[in-house]
């Protein structure tokens, strides 16, 4: 329950990003703000300070003020409010994590059920497809697709997805993880198929579609539900890795991964820029994983003996 509470808190706080940026901090976290000022201890201070040490080259963004109204976590090298970006970035990360996990689970359920139920050539083709995607190191596949699609966008018939669209990382991440969910589902359906109630349904002349929908799906659904929170965590981590390599979420959008990337050049001077989004990822992923364990225990009481927390 603690995990769920933390997760809900993270989601609510991230959803409130526009409220925070508009009414509390009065900042726009997207355009660069090189000349901006803020207030520290009652004094007007530039957001980007010139370096007076060494050769005096370059500027250092302001560090954390720990004042919720003024650059709580400091600024990045564009002079943008890191805390406001953190909240907006969280919206993107959570959105990509959850929608790609949903898309992945739906696709995997569809393909896994078909492969397991129909068997024969359909199963052979689908299983080989899973094998191929599976044999591809997941990051390499995601990176290859991202590099190609981000330069030109995706054009399938009349559908065009722009190169900067969030849909691209969502689709890419969803596709690369389909075998992870589809393979165990296929195995489950294979064993369900041999059970008496399916034989009975076939015996009374139910159509394939009806058997899949009314008999197989309700029995396979708990497994998909158990996978879902884990997939959200995994997808979010993958998104952040791709964004960190600057082939995930594209500017002006921000995600936790892109903010860590922004903070890379400031790591030794203003480490908070990179540390804060990483901590958010860890907190969110830990609660999602704990939630996944909880859901598994709830749906499969026998597993409770095996799991511990």
């Amino acid at each position, binding site marked *: 329950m603690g995990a769920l509470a933390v997760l809900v808190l993270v989601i609510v706080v991230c959803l409130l990003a526009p409220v925070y940026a508009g009414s509390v901090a009065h900042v726009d976290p997207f355009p660069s703000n090189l000349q901006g000022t803020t207030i520290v201890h009652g004094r007007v201070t530039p957001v980007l300070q010139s370096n007076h040490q060494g050769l005096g080259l370059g500027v250092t963004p302001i560090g954390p003020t720990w004042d919720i109204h003024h650059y709580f976590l400091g600024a990045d090298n564009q002079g943008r409010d890191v805390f406001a970006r953190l909240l907006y970035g969280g919206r993107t990360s959570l959105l990509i994590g959850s929608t790609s996990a949903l898309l992945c689970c739906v696709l995997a359920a569809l393909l896994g059920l078909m492969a397991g139920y129909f068997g024969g050539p359909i199963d052979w083709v689908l299983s080989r497809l899973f094998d191929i995607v599976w044999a*591809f190191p997941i990051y390499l596949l995601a990176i*290859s697709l991202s590099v*190609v699609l981000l*330069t030109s*966008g995706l054009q399938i018939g009349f559908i065009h997805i722009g190169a900067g669209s969030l849909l691209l990382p969502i689709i890419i991440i969803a596709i690369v993880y389909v075998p992870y969910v589809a393979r165990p589902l296929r195995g489950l359906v294979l064993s369900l198929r041999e059970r008496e109630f399916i034989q009975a349904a076939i015996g009374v002349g139910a159509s394939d579609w009806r058997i899949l929908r009314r008999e197989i799906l309700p029995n396979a659904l708990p497994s998909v539900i158990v996978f879902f929170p884990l997939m959200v965590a995994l997808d979010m981590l993958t998104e952040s890795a791709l964004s960190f390599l600057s082939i995930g979420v594209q500017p002006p959008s921000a995600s936790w991964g892109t903010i*860590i990337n922004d903070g890379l050049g400031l790591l030794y001077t203003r480490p908070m820029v990179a540390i804060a989004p990483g901590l958010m990822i*860890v907190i969110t992923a830990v609660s999602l994983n704990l939630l996944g364990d909880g859901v598994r225990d709830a749906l499969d009481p026998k597993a409770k003996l095996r799991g*511990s927390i």
Partner: protein
Amino acid sequence: MLSFVARRVLAAVLVLFAISVLVFLIFFATPGVDPAARIAGRSATPQILAQVRHEFGLDRPLPIRYALLMEHLFIKRDLTSYVNIGDKVVPQIMNAAPVTLSLVIGAAVIWLVAGIAGGVVAARFRGRLIDPIIMLAGISAISVPAYWLGEVVNLITESRLHSSVFSWVPAAGYVPISQGVGQWALHLLFPWLTLAALYAGIYARVLRAELVTALGEDYVRTARAKGLSERRILIRHALRCSLISIVSLFGLDFGSLVGGAALLTEVVFGLPGVGQLTYTSLQDLDLPVIMGCVMYAAFFVVLANTIVDVAYAWLDPRVRRA
């Protein structure tokens, strides 16, 4: 058994072929992607573009280009980079492979020891305080982005505490084992720990679940009835059986990491391994190098898959008939 092995090897070759076609299509046949424009640069005239297309063989039909690429990669082994003209792909990969192997082997030792110890201790003391602590540590380890962990480690060891606690940590980079095992290990220590954290977490969780299931089996009850000590039952009976799933997991993880999945760790710690090579070639869209790296990676993953399958069949005769 022999026919099973033969079938698995044939399937592996087919999967490798399919992967090579898939990668080729992703990079050469995605609508809107023009390798010639990349090579010639932004301000190239149509004449230069046409010349580049001809020189690199990009004006030929796709199947012929695929065959030529494979010939240069595997038979002549003289495939050259599009970006750094003259750099051969195969030697580049061969130079990067020892770095990746050094990183992955060291990390594997750490995560196997930590993961198995964590799983065994948690299962032995299940329900007591130490069990949820280990499992929470495991969940945290699988929830941390590896590259971020690497950055934080760099921050602590190279900057914040470098003048006091971590003054013995050398600057990030790779030192070959030929220049002394000590320096090699010292430079790789933190990359090892960073890479190992995730897998130690996974293995501890999987092993604990397997052990607790095994401890409920009949053969464990028999062992208890014989009066064996709880420790002996856990190590000699339950662990032996549970290690099978760890071994198969290990085969797959090791294969994909050697193939370049350690890319993020390599990038963060500045290790010039296969992952780093793949990453730079992807950023430059240097297609021959990408092709070489992906085929190399796929080879290790498919090899690991095949070895795991064959090992399974050897351990469990029922699998052979499937």
